[in-house]
């Protein structure tokens, strides 16, 4: 903590955005020396995490942090304001960046990928954009960095350069860019035209707006404009993005990018519409049920996928809609649950992706059907997978329990029984498509090999990768037993106001 | 009747303009297009000169004892416009010659078929 005590609190926000960029430039300079390059990346990630920790500390101490860069238009600037929800997301993203970097080093080397410098560079730029999204003080800033995030992750998706990668990249860019320009920009500008401001304010900024049907349209535009939230039918980009190397899928398409989407929706719900006002908007319910439908449909699709990453991708689509549903239920507890789900789903899903990648590197297996009996060869990986899967399903003693619990309570509070039922069915579906994988890995009937299991059989992925997935699976457990810090943070969000004090 | 006396000049000029304009847009031969352009422009010059006329006036060169002169300003403008016209004609005709060298024809539909038109 002492590291940053001489820096002004507001300056920290700038640092959080700029440090990854500097790191990116440094690692380009170190491009020809892989060891140096990766040390730079790790160091940057660690540095960023410390910055975010200090910001978190300041948030608890109610130190106001904001900074303005440049006025893009008269009365509209690129502004960054720290608020608890953003801090939560920043914490998750920056912490997982360290782990992912560690993992990526093992993965990329193990996989002998080309263009590793470009890979790490784009990765750092993407993280910088995510930080900017976390701390954005108005919708314009959010929009600007939302687009930057799309563009900076595009080279990562198409990293392999194969025909499939190109096709995936086209879908990725096409959907994300189109929805954001056609819907999100329109929504942002519509808000600007209606209210005359774009600042995120506690309680929302549309309180004085009489025209409800206009707000209804705006809400739909926001929900679909934020294509990164992957609400059906604009979810196709996420499975398409799975052609990327696994670390990318892990951090960006389980954590940073997709969470940037649902984070934006949460932020719009809380700070633009305001939770109270949201209830009165007719389309909130419509979008709520579309979200619920997305939860169920994509879970069902996930079951049909044999490719592990594709299955995980559809699982992600489904879980993202939990958060959308939480935001649109428009009760404080549901919103808190949604916020918490950002963190809990992140650790769970990243663990699963890490495992998928580790299997790919170690055994070159992509499909679920080939993974029977893998527990003998990769016991650590498969154990981690089981932990992650249970967390995603939402069973104790894993982190996912809490967020699903609050979401369900929120749905009950809002008198939306259909949503409660949906959540229950979805959990069952989760069990159906996730749990069989570790179970078969450990207990499937193998070809008659009477040999008792021994360590000699073990063929794990490279050490850095194994460490990474161990850490995240430990995280799943830790967040179950010690969720209090995160809960405290969420309680600071205006509109939630300590709604979930009873936990722990 | 007075309408005719007042405007007959303009009407004929309009007719001339449109004749020239028609040749420009409908002619297939590029030389004829340029001729049409010239007729079009010359007729526009006549519009200007017509408006400068004052009945009973003389050419705008100061002579003792004359008080009624036609308006000199349209004349000045048209002097300039004539020069602009001949300049355009010269460049246009040079292009026609080069097109003849390049395509062997100056009929619009023939060279359009040779290259895929945009």
């Amino acid at each position, binding site marked *: 903590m002492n590291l940053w005590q001489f820096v002004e609190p507001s300056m920290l926000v700038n640092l959080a955005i700029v440090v990854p960029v500097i790191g990116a430039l440094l690692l380009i300079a170190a491009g020809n020396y892989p060891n140096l390059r990766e040390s730079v990346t790790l160091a940057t990630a660690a540095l960023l995490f410390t910055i975010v920790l200090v910001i978190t500390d300041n948030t608890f101490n109610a130190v106001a942090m904001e900074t303005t860069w*440049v*006025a*893009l*238009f*008269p009365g509209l600037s690129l502004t960054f304001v720290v608020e608890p929800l953003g801090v939560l997301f920043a914490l998750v993203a920056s912490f997982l960046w360290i782990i992912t970097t560690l993992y990526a080093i093992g993965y990329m080397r193990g996989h002998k990928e080309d263009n590793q410098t470009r890979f790490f560079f784009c990765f750092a730029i993407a993280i910088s954009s995510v930080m900017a999204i976390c701390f954005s003080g108005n919708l314009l800033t959010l929009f*600007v960095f939302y*687009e*930057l995030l799309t*563009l900076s992750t595009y080279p990562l998706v*198409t990293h392999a*350069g194969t025909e499939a990668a*190109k096709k995936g*990249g*086209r879908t990725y*860019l*096409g959907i994300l*860019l*189109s929805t954001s*320009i*056609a819907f999100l*920009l*329109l929504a942002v*500008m*519509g808000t*600007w*035209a209606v209210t005359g401001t774009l600042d995120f304010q506690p309680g929302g900024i549309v309180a004085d707006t009489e025209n409800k049907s206009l707000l209804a349209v705006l809400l739909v535009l926001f929900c679909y404009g934020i294509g990164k939230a992957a609400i059906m039918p604009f979810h196709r980009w996420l499975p398409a993005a799975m052609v990327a190397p696994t670390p990318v899928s892990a951090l960006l398409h389980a954590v940073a990018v997709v969470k940037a989407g649902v984070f934006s929706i949460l932020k719009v719900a809380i700070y633009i519409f305001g939770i109270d006002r949201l209830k009165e908007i007719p389309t909130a319910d419509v979008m709520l049920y579309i979200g619920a439908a997305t939860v169920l449909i994509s879970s069902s699709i996930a079951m049909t996928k044999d490719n592990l990453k594709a299955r995980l991708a559809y699982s992600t689509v489904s879980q993202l809609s939990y958060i959308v549903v939480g935001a649109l239920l428009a009760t404080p507890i549901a919103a808190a649950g949604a916020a918490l789900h950002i963190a809990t789903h992140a650790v769970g899903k990243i663990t699963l992706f890490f495992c998928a990648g580790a299997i790919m590197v170690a055994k070159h297996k992509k499909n679920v059907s080939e993974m029977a009996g893998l527990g003998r060869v990769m016991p650590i990986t498969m154990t981690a997978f089981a932990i992650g899967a249970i967390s995603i399903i939402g069973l104790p003693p894993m982190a996912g329990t809490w967020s699903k619990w609050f979401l369900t309570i929120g749905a009950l509070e809002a008198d939306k029984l259909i949503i409660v039922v949906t959540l229950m069915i979805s959990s069952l579906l989760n069990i159906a498509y996730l749990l069989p994988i570790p179970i078969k890995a450990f207990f499937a009937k193998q070809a008659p090999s009477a040999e008792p299991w021994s360590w000699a059989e073990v063929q794990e992925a490279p050490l850095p990768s194994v460490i990474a997935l161990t850490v995240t699976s430990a995280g799943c457990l830790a967040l179950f037993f010690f969720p209090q810090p995160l809960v405290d943070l969420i309680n600071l969000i205006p509109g939630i106001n300590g709604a979930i004090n009873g936990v722990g | 009747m007075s309408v005719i006396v007042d405007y007959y000049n303009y009407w004929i000029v309009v007719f001339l*303009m449109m004749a020239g*304009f028609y040749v*420009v*847009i409908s002619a297939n031969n*590029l030389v004829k*297009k340029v001729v049409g*352009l010239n007729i*079009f*422009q010359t007729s*526009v010059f006549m*519009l*200007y000169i017509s*408006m400068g006329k004052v009945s009973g006036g003389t050419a705008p060169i100061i002579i003792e004892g004359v008080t009624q002169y036609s308006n000199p*300003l*349209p004349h000045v*403008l048209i002097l*300039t*416009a004539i020069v*602009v016209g001949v*300049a*355009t004609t010269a*460049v*246009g005709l040079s*292009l*026609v010659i*080069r*097109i003849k060298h*390049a*395509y062997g024809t100056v009929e619009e539909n023939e*060279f*359009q078929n040779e*290259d895929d*038109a*945009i």
Partner: protein
Amino acid sequence: MLEQHLPALAILLPLIAAPIVFILGRSTVVWLLATFTGAWASIVAFQLLLTTLAEGAIHYSLGGWSAPWGIELTVDALNAFVLLAVTGVSTMVLVYSKESIAKEIDKAKHGFYYTAYLLAMAGLSGILITGDAFNLFVFLEISSLATYTLVSLASDRRCLTAAFRYLIMGTIGATFILIGVGLLYMKTGTLNMLDLAERIAAFDRSRTINTGLAFIVVGVSIKLALFPLHRWLPPAYTYAPSAVSSFLASTATKVAVYVLIRFIFTIFGPDYVFYDMGMDMVFMFLAIVAIFKCSYMAAVQNNVKTILAFSSVAQVGYMVLGISLVTTTGLMAGLIHIFNHALMKSALFMAVGAVFYRVGSVEVHAFKGMGKQMPFTMAAFTIAGLSIIGVPLTAGFVSKWYLVSAALQQNLWVIAVLILLGSLLAIVYIGRIVEAAYFHDVPEGRDASKLKEAPLLMLIPMWVMVLANLYFGIDTSLTTEAVGHASEWLFQSTELLEVAQ
């Protein structure tokens, strides 16, 4: 001493440099002289803009004869702003020209190139600054004749037919303007723009004035390639030498848009044009059709220069759309897009020219693998392309923002949606080229080792334009201040006239 003569200098610098360049012939000195002239003219334009922003309009009576008897140069925020864009971009294209025309134009004709270029610049500056309707016609013809020459300098024979078509359409347009100005003159007896405005506002609307308006609008619309009068533009931009395409795409049509604005707002007054004559609906309809039809046309072409040419017509649609909204914000959007579009299109055409320099073709397949072979060129193309699409932090985003705001201010949600959908089409046509550059290998039979990065003298101006795209996408103070002043003044002036009435 020169301060008081700035308006005259803006025209005279290129005008006097042109004959000198022609006498000097075809050496490197000529290039230096032309570039120097361009740079000086840009500085003059910048000074003019600062002066007008600080002190208001400048009037300069040529020959010492006051208006309306003599010809007056009138500089206000509007034309100073456009002048800055035109001279600035022209200068950068001049820098770029040296290497580019070495490849594309016969060495013996380089002297003609620079002379015609400077004449075109002088003509465009003259159109922008003059305060006299007939003088505008004269400068219009100077710039037109010079551009016909420039287009015809390419070695592809198709440039000849393109130039001829351009000449016929351009001359018809100019003659229409001449007829229109004649009709106005007939009713008012004056040619000075401000005097015309006063007298038109004072007279009752008459059929003659209506016809004059119609002819001027149609004539200018030909010049600015407003759909459906745009047919001359794509071939001209496609077959002209790359440097010329870059120059024309970023200046000629922009100046024509300026002329449209000047006639509508300063001379006729928006009340008359839009409320009495209902032209706003016509413009809006044509602009929307232009955006979609020509963006679509751009998306299906195979020649990159044709793609960019159709894109230009579509972008002109955005400018006209801004004007047709008849609000200060709408006009600001149109004006800002004049400036920003000049920045992006010049950069794009420069990048295309650089590829032509190495590959010798501008078909989309010629771009395959260029991302690796010519990284700086293709990066420039990509960034400028993002600007066309309207991605945040580029100049194109600023234009789009104002345009959509203007539409929303008027509660025209449909228009706002259409604007945004239109920019999706830009993703398609830019995306195709970018994809070819980055995701394909150099085709078989093309020696990749020879496809090096473009020469520095092409890269530098290209990147200056790219950086300008980024700069004006982030720091919009200069552009918004200028267009804010300009559009407020344009609307105000008509109100003032009404009060006087």
